[in-house]
């Protein structure tokens, strides 16, 4: 059994080495396409986190002062409950705000440690009847003047645009990635086909002396799978670069304070990486399986 494992790995690596230029091309294509898949997922996640507070029609948020009195709070709530201009609202208390803060900044523990639930501002997330920008701005101004209100954040056009932008970017990346994943599967198929061609004599002898079909196939299947896995492994550092350089760039820009939420925690990047390895392995396996069934007449 051990001997057979040794045989498979020897045959696989000899073949990889013999076929180096095609192998490199296949691996790099997998790496690039999976980097794009990963980046698309990261941007999607980043946008979802950045705009988490403005989902489902919420157009503006009234943040209360942490030390607002009960009367001040009740006054706001009464307006919200009675005004026909308000379709609905949700109240986020200190505890809930703190939990959300922890989630958004889960990769910055020093930031999470510096705050407590007690200093988090409770807030009202408001869905107005008329989401038109001028109307929202006017309502935000009125709430902002009420006693006990710390500030009012609106889902400005800029935010909506950026949300839209990141959607488009991640979709475009995803389309390119899907095409490239197809290309990498074809390249792997071709590489394995070439490897089969290079070993035609050996395969012929193997068949004649009675090697089983799977014994002949496995080194080629392994070869394709390894292309996929190495490519995916190369895409993992690329993902961290995207996370730490590109997304961090958005976070650091002061233009839109909300973009500070455009942070994707390392945990999410690792989860994505595992998916990339799975995709890479599967793509490699499919590519080589097709090559083996089409060109290896066993």
């Amino acid at each position: 059994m051990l001997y057979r494992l040794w045989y498979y790995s020897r045959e696989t690596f000899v073949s990889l080495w013999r076929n180096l230029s095609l192998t490199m091309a296949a691996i790099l294509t997998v790496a690039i396409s999976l980097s794009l898949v990963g980046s698309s997922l990261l941007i999607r996640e980043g946008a979802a986190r950045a705009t988490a507070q403005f989902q489902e029609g919420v157009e503006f948020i009234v943040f209360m002062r942490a030390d607002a009195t009960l009367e001040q709070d009740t006054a706001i709530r009464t307006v919200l409950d009675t005004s026909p201009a308000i379709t609905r609202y949700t109240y986020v208390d200190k505890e809930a705000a703190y939990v959300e803060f922890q989630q958004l900044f889960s990769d910055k523990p020093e930031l999470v440690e510096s705050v407590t639930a007690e200093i988090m501002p409770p807030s009202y997330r408001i869905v107005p009847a008329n989401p038109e920008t001028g109307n929202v701005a006017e309502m935000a101004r009125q709430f902002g003047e009420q006693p006990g209100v710390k500030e009012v954040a609106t889902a400005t056009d800029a935010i909506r645009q950026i949300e839209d932008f990141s959607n488009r970017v991640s979709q475009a990346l995803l389309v390119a990635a899907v095409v490239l994943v197809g290309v990498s599967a074809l390249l792997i198929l071709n590489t394995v086909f070439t490897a089969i061609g290079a070993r035609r004599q050996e395969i012929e002898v193997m068949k004649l002396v009675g090697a089983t079909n799977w014994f002949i196939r496995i080194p080629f299947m392994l070869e394709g799978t390894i292309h996929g896995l190495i490519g995916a492994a190369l895409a993992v550092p690329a993902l961290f670069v995207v996370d730490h350089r590109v997304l961090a760039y958005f976070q650091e820009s002061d233009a839109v304070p909300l973009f500070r939420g455009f942070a994707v925690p390392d945990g999410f990047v690792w989860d994505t990486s595992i998916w990339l390895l799975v995709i890479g392995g599967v793509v490699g396996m499919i590519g080589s399986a097709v090559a083996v069934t089409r060109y290896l007449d066993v």
Partner: protein
Amino acid sequence: MIRLDGVSKVYKGDVVALRNASAEIQRGEFVFLVGPSGSGKSTFIRLLNREEIADEGRITVAGKDVGEMSSWKVPYLRRQIGYIFQDYKLLPKKTVFENVAFGLEVIGRPRQVVRKQVPAILELVGLSRKAERLPDELSGGEQQRVSIARAFVNRPLILLADEPTGNLDPGTSVGIMRLLDRINRSGTTVVMATHDRGIVDSMRRRVIELDRGVIKRDESQGVYE
């Protein structure tokens, strides 16, 4: 050991390779297949190994119906059949030892078996001292000995040989025939397709003559024609 009942094989374009051929070969027999090129000798051999499948009739090898056999069982059939070619089919980048060992490795035999069997078989074919040579450093006769060693290292019941002396001079051929004779005397059934009149006439073994796919003659202790 081998039995053909009314076997026919027709290739594309209505080329008849074998027509209604029947024969029975006992364990331990040595059989020459003779006949001109295109008479069906190679097809006869390839059918036994299931490289080809008969269109009609029934072929039994070592108790198994070769035509009905499911394809995953074919490798196990082939492990009982050694196969020798006119052009040796040695792997050029492997040494003599590695070429012979390859025949055992790829059917999953453990390394201890390889280490024991390969030197023994190289001794038998007289190539012990050339174990580390590459095929292109050997003469044609020596290369054919390597191919016989690879075919026989797993101690098959049957040895099929398709023109094994076709590329060799008469003197060298005699050496190869002595080796095949020795293997046959150890109980292995040998079926050999050949054009070599001198060999057939001097060995005086069973001869099956094919002519345009039909068995024309089948006699024990026969001659070429």
